């Protein structure tokens, strides 16, 4: 499903080179729920940005579903993100001028789906994350946990091949975090590939596999199953 080979991300800081991700290689099969963990500054979020095509690695290759993606143009990467990837941000990143249902509808409309069908699919995705009664609320009318669930609904609404989640529970209380994690687990049980960055060991323990980074390198890659 996803194979990364010798991926490095190097930042220049004056004369110094900072290797945020350093020569990392691994593969993730379809349907796996993977946790990328590590201490703050270990490079886990940077690695996720490379995998999620939000940034380009300095070296190495990333193959998603048989396609080498690092050499694609910006427009091709945008199209790939739209059709194949779903992204959940740490601070929800939902659009403030749109209601919950409209937030979920936008990527669907971009795929060429009619407004009516997009709305139906969006409501279905919101209902799936327990927000069926909040579809017309704007972000300001939703709690942090509800906003994150809108973000999840938006990420899964168009049935992507992979869902990337960057510390999705970082801004949530433990009860809400558990609800979000339950949503991920349910999605994974239905076959969804999920790659989640987290620094919470108890949440990482719920996944199929834990990849631990330190100083941009993989220090352990263990299976929970």
């Amino acid at each position, binding site marked *: 499903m996803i194979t990364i080979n010798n991926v490095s991300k190097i930042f220049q800081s004056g004369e110094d080179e900072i290797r945020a991700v350093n020569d990392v290689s691994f593969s993730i099969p379809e349907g796996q729920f993977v946790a990328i963990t590590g201490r703050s500054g270990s490079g886990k979020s940077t690695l996720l*940005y490379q995998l999620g095509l*939000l*940034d380009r690695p300095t070296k190495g290759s990333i193959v998603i579903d048989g396609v080498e993606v690092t050499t694609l143009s910006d*427009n091709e990467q*945008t*199209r790939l*993100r*739209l*059709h194949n*990837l779903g*992204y959940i*941000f740490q601070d929800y*990143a*939902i*659009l*403030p*001028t*749109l209601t919950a249902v*409209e937030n979920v*509808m*936008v*990527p669907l*409309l*971009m*795929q*060429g789906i009619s*407004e009516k069908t997009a709305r139906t699919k969006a409501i279905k995705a919101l209902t799936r994350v327990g927000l069926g009664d909040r579809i017309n609320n*704007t972000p300001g009318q939703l709690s942090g946990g509800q906003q994150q669930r809108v973000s999840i609904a*938006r990420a899964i609404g168009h049935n992507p091949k992979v869902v990337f989640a960057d510390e999705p529970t970082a801004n949530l209380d433990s009860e809400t975090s558990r609800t979000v994690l339950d949503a991920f687990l349910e999605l994974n049980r239905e076959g969804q590939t999920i790659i989640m960055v987290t620094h919470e060991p108890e949440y990482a323990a719920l996944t199929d596999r834990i990849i631990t980074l330190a100083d941009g390198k993989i220090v352990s890659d263990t299976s929970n199953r």
Partner: protein
Amino acid sequence: MQVDGVVGLFLAKRDLKRANLWTTSLIIFVMLLTFLNLVVVSGILVGLIEGSVSADKQYSSGDILISPFLNKAYIENTPEAVAIAKNIQGYQASVVRYTGSARVESNYRTTIRPDELRDGAGGSLLGIDPESEQSFSGIDKFIVEGSFIRKGDSDSVVLGKNLLYKYTPIEAPGFQTLKDVSVGSKIRITTGDVKKEYFVKGIISSKVDTFDSSVVMLDSEARKLIGRSDYNANQIAIRLVPGTDPIEAKAQLLASGVGEDGRVQTNDEALPKFLKDIQATFGILGNAISSIGLVVAAITIFIVIFVNAITRRRYIGILKGIGITPRAITISYMIQSIFYALAGSLIGMVVVFAVLKPLFVAHPINFPFSDGILVATVPGTVLRMVILLVATIIAGYIPARIVIKQNTLSAILGR
């Protein structure tokens, strides 16, 4: 491309719907002012001359003017020409006038020192038939003192306001006005070798030079002064039924042979060249001022969209992050620009055609030489609306593109 448009419209509609009402109103208000600046400033500048031209047409020249050839002192066979004019299609009214130059003096009975000037003024002589003049132009309504001459007033004249210092207080070399003349005064008019005394019956101020710079008297008196024993006049002004094509009417007159007796011109053709030049100059001036307004509008939209896009850099980053194309995002900003420009222009159209134009017709601006009206045609106004629209689309596109081109991840993370 179509999908980009659909998503752009979807985002723009919601952005506009949920935008701050006061901010939106303020932007539309700025666009309205810009639109009015585009239409009204040039409209008034053109209207300033247009008021003068239309007054000349209404009160003096009519739709068609017959005048002597340049090498002739009068229109040959004037009575026949008038008879032919009355039979052309679309004829409504006509008037015959006699003109000449005259010197008017008031203190001619007083002995003055050699270094003193006589109280006098140079002007035109205008001989009219009061009844046909009143029915043709109704010029008598512009009498500001005394009354208009009537049939039988062979000892009276009406003086145009430009001959009187009271109304035209100009003292310049070669230009003299009468200082001690009012209604009831006795004046002497000299035309060539002929001199005759008249009483001043009235004073006219019409903003039509034909009357305001003339000594208006009965046609019979004018003919005596200029030594005309026949009925060949200097001006035949013809008014046509509204909607009649003056070019077509002119062609009928020429076909009837009137063109052999005098110069036949439509009102447009008879317009003095300097007036046409001023018209063109004011049009250019109006367009130049409007262009500045257009640049101000473009900069306003640029700033609005740029500030909007900059403050929503993260929003744009998220859109790109979830797979929305830069083109769709750009379209959403361009639609917002179009909305502001359209809303301002449409309100402006209503203000121009439902409020300002009728207001200027009812209360023209009182310029010294004309009653200024607002000239705004629907095609001209629509053209200005399109220009404003194009300017705002460009002004909306550029800042949106600048912000959208930024790195997606940097925009999302706000770094």
